[in-house]
């Protein structure tokens, strides 16, 4: 158990809500351990004490005892009452109704990546989602196609993203850090690679980050990157992807405005570096089979300039 606590887990909370759940969980673990100990203890006793010995006669044929049955029903009922109270209490704290508050983040699950928009700002990002520490945040959770599920264990409850519905979550992050999560409702071929990275940072850093993300893509481009930009705009890329400040404004795939500032790509599948990007652009269905990006047969040098362009989108 000692070693487990250093693993990122539901038992090492980083938000007020997850903290509440952990204390409830620990009560439950204690109660469950006691019950299990009683069952195993009495079983061991019975097994040792009453195993058949040679020459045993038929034992006394007793059939039951009302008082014992009463305890069997009464004690668990008491336990249920206690946990009923604890459950209701924790629920009300962890996930109260949203009460017409404006959400701080709107998260949308797409087939195999996450989109996060920050209402009131222009910022839209994918997969690596920054959140401020120390403030009670309201998350809205939607889905674009099938049911996904937003889950970052260290931050508390998970919530289904259901097409045609908006769900919400409250999160008050207490510790800055990077928290891993994953889609946990089966959503198709690449369900496994629909991971979440939440970067929790101080309010000031967060504001800075949002401000950066709000800006349109306006990098200083090298010659090859410029060629890449031209190639990008000639090809149908823009019908799915958005790069703010250019003509590309598709909403099907991830927003690429600040693509190069992400540490990983393809929802956590691989590190975001030019080599991986080249591999992906050459044959997406080989790198992440089932992803919605079709395979375009581009010549090698077109891909190279495209990589140069996208890598410049900081």
């Amino acid at each position, binding site marked *: 158990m000692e070693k487990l606590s250093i*693993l990122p887990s539901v038992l090492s909370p980083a938000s007020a809500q997850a903290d509440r759940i952990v204390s409830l*969980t620990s009560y439950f673990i204690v109660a469950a351990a006691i019950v299990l100990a009683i069952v195993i203890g009495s079983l061991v006793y019975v097994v040792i004490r009453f195993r058949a010995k040679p020459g045993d006669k*038929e034992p006394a044929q007793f059939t039951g005892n009302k008082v014992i049955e009463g305890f*069997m029903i009464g004690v668990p009922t008491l336990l249920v009452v206690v946990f009923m109270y604890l459950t209701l209490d924790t629920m009300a704290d962890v996930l109260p109704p949203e009460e017409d508050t404006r959400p701080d983040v709107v998260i949308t699950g797409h087939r195999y990546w996450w989109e996060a928009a920050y209402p009131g700002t222009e910022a839209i990002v994918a997969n690596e989602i920054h959140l401020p520490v120390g403030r009670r945040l309201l998350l809205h959770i939607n889905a674009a196609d099938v049911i996904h599920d937003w889950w970052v264990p260290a931050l508390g409850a998970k919530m289904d993203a259901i097409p045609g519905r908006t769900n919400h979550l409250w999160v008050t992050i207490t510790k800055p850090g990077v928290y891993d999560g994953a889609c946990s409702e089966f959503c198709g071929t690449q*369900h*496994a*690679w629909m991971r979440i990275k939440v970067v929790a940072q101080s309010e000031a850093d967060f504001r800075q980050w949002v401000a950066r993300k709000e800006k349109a893509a306006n990098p200083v481009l090298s010659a090859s990157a410029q060629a890449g930009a031209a190639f990008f705009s000639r090809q149908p890329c823009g019908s799915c992807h958005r790069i703010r400040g250019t003509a590309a404004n598709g909403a099907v795939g991830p927003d690429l405005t600040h693509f190069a500032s992400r540490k990983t790509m393809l929802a956590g599948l691989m590190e975001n570096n030019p080599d991986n990007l080249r591999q992906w652009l050459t044959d997406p269905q080989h790198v992440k089979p089932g992803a919605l990006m079709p395979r375009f047969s581009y010549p090698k040098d077109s891909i190279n300039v495209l990589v140069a362009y996208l890598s410049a989108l900081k």
Partner: protein
Amino acid sequence: MITDVEIPEPLAPLPGATVNTNQGLLQWISSVDHKQIGIMYLLMTLFYLLVGGLLALLMRVQLMVPTNTFLAPDSYNQLFTMHGTTMIFFVLTPAILGLAVYMVPLQIGANEMAFPRLNAFSFWISFFGGFLLYFSFLAGGAPDAGWFSYAPLNQTQYSASPGIDYYCIGLLLSGIGTVGTAANLVVTIITLRTPSMHYRYLPVFVWMVLIDAFLILAAFPSLNAALVMLLVDRQLDGHFFNTDAGGSALLWQHLFWLFGHPEVYIVVLPPFGVLSEVFQVYSRKPIFGYPFVVGSGIAISLLAFGVWVHHMFATGMGNTVNSFFAVSSMLIGIPTGVKVFNWLGTMYGGSIRFTTGMLFATAFLVEFTIGGLSGISFAIVPIDWQLTDTYYVVAHLHYVFLGGSLFGLFAGFFYWVPKISGRLYSETLGKWFFWLFVIGFNLTFFVQHILGIIGMPRRVYTYPNLAGYSSLNLISSLGAFLMGVSMLLFLYLLYDTLKRGKRAGDNPWDGYTFEWLASSPPQLKNFTLLPPVYSFRPLHDLNHPKIGDYQKPDEEKYGTKDVD
């Protein structure tokens, strides 16, 4: 005193015992004998258990190391879908039906099921349902949306291969068969009991089957309706669950879990009945608290329909809805606990014979308690919010389905195999099998609790190399291989029993109920003479007249005497 009691016969008279039994395969295919159909059910179960297990092994190979490429993502998704569907619908459900069809007429002193032809029809339609489901592999891809096939992933635009159509039709067919057998069992138990067998003298197994059959009758129509709607969606372009066209994703979940949760009890109640028999006979004592064991069965089945919403706590239905279902779900823990402690009470004060069957029953108590407790953590909504749809759920459901249902079925297998085959199995082999299986089982699934807690979602075909993931997954896979090896041993044991087993005699365990009065294996006509029934252990009364229950007043028979 054995009185000649008229055995109730089914309406359509069967061919007498003079029928030529040397017809080979034809005799099985055309059989309407409940024993042969029961055996065919069990053989089908064994076959699908091996197939489903093989699928699971392939999955565990894929998950042995992080970012493995042994299987393509699509293949993996098909495998886990087929694994779940097979194990639920073509292993556990037919296993309990097979056991019930074989044992119920014997235990209630009847010679046949009430509707022998319906019995055969139900089996064969289930059989072909499974056949059709597996045919999907040849027809362009098996279903790949999970055994519960959530909408809208089950729609054609997200799952274009015909797999889910096969899933619908296969499950509809086997569903019809299951409902048919359930209705048949109810009628059999109500009408064909030997006349002196009052309801209160039904063996616990028969009680559980009766309750279970009602559960099936009430739960399966909901699944059938959902499947029909899904077929309409997929084949006629309907919009029940198509969220792009106004359909509802949650409607599917409601309908599915309205079936799905009772299904858990459907596959676990008859094993409870089996265990109640096994504990009694090997402890040489009557069951402790008969009315409470039966009553808790009824309580579980009644509550089963009021808790399905707990599968949907993370769908954002709001705290009002969630809190009511949290409470009703927790309540189910009470009757389940009553059962566990009553079985302990049955062992207490006994003279316990640890045959392989009893070992499985004993192990069941531990494994099922673990599964039950982890189940309660899902009724506690905030814990559910964290742990649902993770490997913690995988661990929990395997502890319930394997540790609960399958252990019970294995206990029943070893208890009844001398009756069914007429031969004794080798206890040495049995014990080897038991220990290998139990160790493999716990290795595989216990660590999965931890995997869930450290954040591994279920149904992932691979996982990143995060702290703890690879070592725990490796342990789990090794455990799975151990289980695989033990299953090979089980097959050998079966072969050994049939080939070299000693003749068992009619009543090798000094059993309590009527099946042990018939010959081993039972003749085509089970009984010609039956003693009258004065307690739920009629054969014990007959064989041990000095200490038989028949002389006790009812309150002592049932352990409901008021304590002074």
